[in-house]
């Protein structure tokens, strides 16, 4: 089965998309500002906890345990949801998940749905599917609404509209909202005015639409409960007002017990938004006859996850709780923004998740979209060793390349093989030193090389130090000879 996540397979390679993104001065400013603000808040609020490292270790161990016994916990979750009056559906891929959800909406004669912010729905491209069948999806998370109205793509999975600023948001609202009808003919630039416009636009939908679609941050096996963590309360509107609620949940979201949430609640908001607790944490267990939706469906989504599970080294990518702390910490993401990754899940976690969820060949450039600086690993609340997995994926790509004749003949492969051979023999190394010095000679000026054939990717913007006359080992041996003399 070949899994494809969104349009990632057709996206240009990262380095190409990044080149264009880097030239967008507005984007660069927005990215720098937003990632720094969140990062600083996160550092401050995480710094309050003296046992942060212990929490990380516990969270990591819990996730590793769940991955080891995922089948058992999923069955337990299913049994408990069913017992509480909910319906559980299993979707092996995006196509199946889309059909299940559309089928449920159509079964209830629904022409509209209201949505809680959910990354899994973006992963399976639910909105285009619904729209193609005459069902209008309304995003109700403010940032997702901005993205939807702007016909844009999310660039961050906690703050999807991170790449645009309030002035750009105002333009989108002016273009797409019936502001006259809403009683806001002169929409101002201030964030509270923009929030008021969004509130009026959405309120009417909350009260009218009868079907809600959500994701979940956690699924508790012990009780069959789902959890949504959010900042605005719009999610809670969608979770409580409609008659029918459909939740699309990745199978890796399950945790064993209600008590396990204690650790994750302590870490998620701190890591994601730099808050001690998120303003709205909604927990529900199927249906309650006196309150909330009368019918509840949960769609458990695989879509490549069980294949990731097979790789003992790569499977830690499934531990992710989508806090996006790694995005905010990443010096690459902070400059290119999320769109350059051409992926539903961008940034460092996306660079290890996307190539594993879908076949590696559909996202070959992503494992290299990192300087391996380690800021992501340091920020990750569940201790996913992202640099280690990036290297692991790079090695899979290299081995794939070496299995093909074209790959074996590539400049990189030949160069790497040659250097490995040179480093396996001292006299070869000495000869290589002489050769390098000789080869560089004609390009040397003022102690540097400013351009040299084959080195343009470096020398286009940086000088190279010239190779000195004497290597360290030559100096050392000369010194030893002098000492003996």
């Amino acid at each position: 089965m070949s899994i494809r996540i969104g349009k990632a397979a057709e996206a240009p390679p990262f380095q190409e998309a990044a080149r264009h993104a880097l030239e967008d001065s507005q984007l660069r400013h927005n990215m720098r500002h937003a990632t720094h603000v969140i990062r600083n808040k996160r550092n401050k609020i995480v710094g309050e906890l003296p046992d942060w490292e212990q929490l990380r270790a516990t969270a990591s161990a819990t996730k590793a345990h769940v991955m080891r016994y995922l089948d058992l916990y999923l069955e337990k979750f299913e049994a408990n949801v069913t017992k509480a009056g909910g319906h559980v559906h299993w979707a092996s891929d995006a196509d199946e998940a889309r059909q299940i959800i559309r089928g449920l909406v159509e079964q209830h004669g629904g022409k509209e749905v209201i949505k809680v912010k959910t990354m899994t729905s973006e992963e399976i491209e639910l909105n285009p599917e619904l729209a193609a069948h005459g069902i209008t999806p309304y995003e109700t998370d403010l940032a997702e609404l901005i993205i939807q109205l702007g016909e844009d793509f999310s660039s961050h999975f906690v703050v999807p509209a991170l790449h645009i600023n309030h002035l750009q948001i105002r333009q989108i609202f002016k273009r797409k909202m019936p502001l006259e009808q809403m009683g806001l003919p002169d929409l101002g630039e201030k964030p509270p005015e923009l929030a008021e416009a969004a509130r009026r636009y959405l309120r009417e939908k909350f009260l009218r639409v009868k079907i809600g679609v959500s994701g979940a941050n956690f699924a508790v096996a012990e009780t069959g409960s789902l959890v949504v963590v959010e900042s605005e309360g719009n999610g809670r509107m969608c979770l409580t007002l409609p008659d029918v609620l459909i939740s699309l949940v990745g199978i890796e979201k399950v945790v064993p017990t209600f008590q396990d949430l204690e650790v994750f609640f302590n870490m998620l908001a701190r890591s994601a938004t730099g808050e001690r607790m998120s303003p709205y944490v909604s927990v529900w267990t199927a249906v309650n006859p006196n309150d909330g939706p009368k019918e509840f469906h949960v769609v458990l989504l695989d879509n490549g996850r069980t294949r990731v599970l097979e790789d003992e080294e790569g499977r830690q990518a499934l531990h992710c709780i989508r806090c996006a702390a790694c995005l905010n910490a990443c010096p690459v993401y902070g400059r290119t923004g999320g769109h350059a990754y051409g992926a539903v899940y961008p940034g460092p976690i996306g660079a290890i998740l996307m190539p594993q969820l879908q076949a590696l060949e559909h996202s070959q450039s992503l494992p290299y979209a990192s300087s391996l600086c380690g800021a992501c690993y340091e920020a990750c609340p569940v201790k996913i060793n992202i640099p280690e997995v990036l290297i692991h994926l790079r090695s899979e790509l290299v081995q794939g390349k070496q299995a093909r004749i074209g790959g074996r003949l590539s400049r990189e492969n030949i160069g790497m093989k040659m250097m490995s051979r040179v480093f396996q023999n001292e006299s070869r190394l000495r000869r290589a030193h002489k050769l390098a010095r000789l080869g560089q000679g004609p390009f040397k000026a003022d102690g540097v090389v400013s351009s040299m054939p084959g080195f343009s990717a470096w020398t286009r913007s940086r000088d190279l130090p010239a190779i000195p006359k004497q290597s360290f080992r030559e100096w050392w041996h000369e010194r030893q000879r002098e000492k003996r003399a």
Partner: protein
Amino acid sequence: MLVSLFVACYNDLLFPQTGRAVVKVLERLGHTVEFRSAQTCCGQMHYNTGYIRESQPLLRRFVDTFRDAEVVCAPSSSCVAMIRDHYPKLAREMNDSRLVADVDQLVSRVFEFSEFLVKKLGVEDVGAYYPHRVTYHPACHSLRGLKLGDIPYRLLQKVRSLQLIELPEKEECCGFGGTFSIKNADTSQAMLADKVRTILDTEAELCIATDNSCLMHIFGSLHRGRTGVKTAHIAEVLASTEGEPFA
């Protein structure tokens, strides 16, 4: 103490003065330095680029070269991070139990140069004199890999006549990342531009680090822009004395 120097392949060829500085500092402190000339490269570049199989013989060679060394000292935080963080795992993938045992024995005796001075030798004042205004860039592998913390600062603060200026946003990567600087040259350059801007903001004469690979990257831009700001490895600063400035 008999200290075995692992100079690192790129220092050997491109930055021999760093190796000479390490020798000078350690000898000044009364230790004997040896250089085992069978040494070549730790395999970091191959490993990080995904050429794991090509890095394996280099691990074996490193272990063969230094197996019986009392301590190994290397003026490169990224090479020491490669050895400490990846050798144990890499050796296990090679299915050679003797090699695994050797690696486990050896790794705890390999030190980065500044860490060796402060943690192993317990020295902070090495008697250096360096009459310059400098700033310090904590290379990613020294900061997040080896977790050197304030070790390099403690050494620099004891250098006479040295003026140390705090580098703004110092924990940001310079954008080198080995082959990242080639494969993603534009993003790498964008990161470097910001690093260089913060260095220039300090009005320092030199930028100091524990790793010449990052410094090569930073120097490349400082020189291209004719900023007049230079780079130097921390060993070169510590090797300088009033009587014998190190250059």
